[in-house]
């Protein structure tokens, strides 16, 4: 027999899902990132036009989401490294809360600084 979602409904599994999804989303964004950078090679005007285009509110919002994803993936990775390399017992839940909190704080700081 196989497990269904009920077996997976616990904090560490959600953390795993978040880490996996943020990783996938970031890797999907990467080609756009390179494409945008590549535009700089085509001259200043073209790059400026692109940067102007990204000033739209919707894209600003997407940018905040991107920073949140990055922060989530980074803190999720740090959490994993801590789990793998530090001798631990019993504090993985607090670690998880720290990782989520830190990711959120970074996202918020970025959103407010805009």
């Amino acid at each position, binding site marked *: *027999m196989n497990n269904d979602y009920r077996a997976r409904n616990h904090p560490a599994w959600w953390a795993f899902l978040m880490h996996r999804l943020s990783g996938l989303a970031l890797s999907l964004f990467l080609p756009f990132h390179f494409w945008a950078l590549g535009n700089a090679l085509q001259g200043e005007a073209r790059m400026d036009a692109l940067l102007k285009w990204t000033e739209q509110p919707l894209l600003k919002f997407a940018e905040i989401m991107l920073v949140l994803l990055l922060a989530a993936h980074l803190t999720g990775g740090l959490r994993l490294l801590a789990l793998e390399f530090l001798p631990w017992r019993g504090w993985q839940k607090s670690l998880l809360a720290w990782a989520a909190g830190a990711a959120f704080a970074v996202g918020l700081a970025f959103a407010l600084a805009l």
Partner: protein
Amino acid sequence: MNMLQVSVWRGGASGGYRIYEVPRQESQSVLDVVTYIQRHIDPTLSYRFACRVGMCGACAMTVNGVARWTCRTHVSKVVKGNAIQIAPLANLPVIKDLVTDMRGFFDKWARARGQFVSGSGTTRKDDFARVASDSPERVAANAGIECIGCGVCYASCDVVSWNPDYLGPAALNRAWTLVNDVRDGARRERLAAVAGDAGCHACHTHLACSERCPKDIEPTASIAGLKRAVARAALKGEL
């Protein structure tokens, strides 16, 4: 009388759920519910238990989708309205009803070299080995030693579902307690047995095993310990 609606898996792998009405009682365990069905409604229901006090590890089942030891799981903790669903453990072949074939699970303990091998050449005529109770090895072994072999962690692990060869949390936890047994003489062979794709390196650190283990063991920590021990041994050229 207050009745529970209990849906119980009947048959082998291609069976289905059947619903039974069981009187609700105070301080009732899920195992009590299953036993009531077998004693009062349908004597052909198969299930396993022995100690009824959380020592033998025989009574594990999937209760409302989550693997649990049923003798120490109160109905009040898991009941949804007045419904409970009881199925055999996941990740193991179903023999009949709530009974799974645990052979694969225990064979993996053997494959992970879960047996103690005396390393000092001492015999039963010699005095006891002395291991300081606060030594780091003893503390690490202690953290995993209370395993009752119930299979709850194994049934909860996604990597076991994905890779049927994966040794799984319980066997690896057992190996880790022995790696920390200073009297043991098979450290190198054991580390070689638990390294690699079907061993500790397959673990995704989902922590499902640690979340569900009824004995509050954290196999994930033991597996992380094995990964570090294997890496250290490999660096020293011992593997």
